[in-house]
């Protein structure tokens, strides 16, 4: 009786397989074990793949605004803007104006040294340049 339950449970996983793997018990057991192994490895690889996808999307969006991805990330980090790549990617797709504001912030932080050396000491317009302390 227990064996029949196990076979029933196996059938649930094997419906979409090709060939005798979806009909014959011995072949199905082996195929299902391989499938479970691939699924476990893929759960780890999914996190890596999602991150590379986010990075390429953010890079595309920053290049639209005239900057490069490493410059954006490094300067946002220096400004202590702790947005992760997932959020940055979503902003770049659905909130283009906010993303443009972030690139402007990163560009201002990037050019801070040059502005201090060559400019006239005024703060860049339209950028929060001091972290305000809550009282």
């Amino acid at each position, binding site marked *: 009786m227990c064996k029949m339950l196990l076979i029933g449970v196996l059938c649930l996983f094997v419906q979409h397989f090709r060939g005798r793997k979806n009909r014959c018990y011995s072949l199905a057991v082996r195929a299902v074990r391989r499938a479970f192994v691939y699924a476990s490895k893929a759960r780890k690889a999914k996190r890596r793949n999602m991150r590379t*996808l986010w990075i*390429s*999307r*953010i*890079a*595309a*969006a920053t*290049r*639209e605004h005239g900057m490069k991805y490493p410059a954006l990330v490094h300067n946002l980090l220096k400004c202590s803007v702790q947005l992760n790549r*997932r*959020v940055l*990617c*979503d902003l*770049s*797709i*659905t*909130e*283009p104006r906010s993303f443009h504001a972030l690139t402007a912030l990163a560009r201002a932080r990037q050019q801070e040294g040059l502005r201090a050396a060559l400019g006239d000491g005024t703060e860049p317009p339209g950028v929060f340049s001091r972290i305000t302390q809550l009282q």
Partner: protein
Amino acid sequence: MSSFSRSAQQWATFARSWLLIDARLQPPGKIATMCAVRLQGKHKPIYHPLSDIGDHVVVMNTRHIAFSGNKWEQKVYSSHTGYPGGFKQLTAAQMHKKDPTAIIKLAVYGMLPKNLTRRTMMQRLHIFPDDVIPEDILKNLTEELPQPRKIPRKLSEYTQEERDAFPLLWNP
């Protein structure tokens, strides 16, 4: 994914645009990278390798491409016909004389990802040796991309006043 928001989609997000690049006096490798990026769709924030969101790219004036250095004589394109004694080697100059579009085509082919979508992307690349482009492609063009290399002026294009005003470093 839990962070999908239900904001409205922008107009024509997934449209396939037609881009034009003028390759006159430009390095073919830089032209090829620009083409490859846009054929794959990597210039769009909605990029995904499976979504087929690349654009069409039209390259014109490939007859007037400009390799830097001595690459016209030194760069060798090799191929093998499969038959014994069929190893062929052509310099870039010979290849260009035989087919003015081949250099850009091979460069872009090598820069695209080596998977089954590469052939469809190559079909979306249109290369013309001169600036004669067919009517139906001309009607589709939406944007011209800026050239990667700034073309330096020839000595004959400088006026006599500019030549005199140029600072003299030493007297020969």
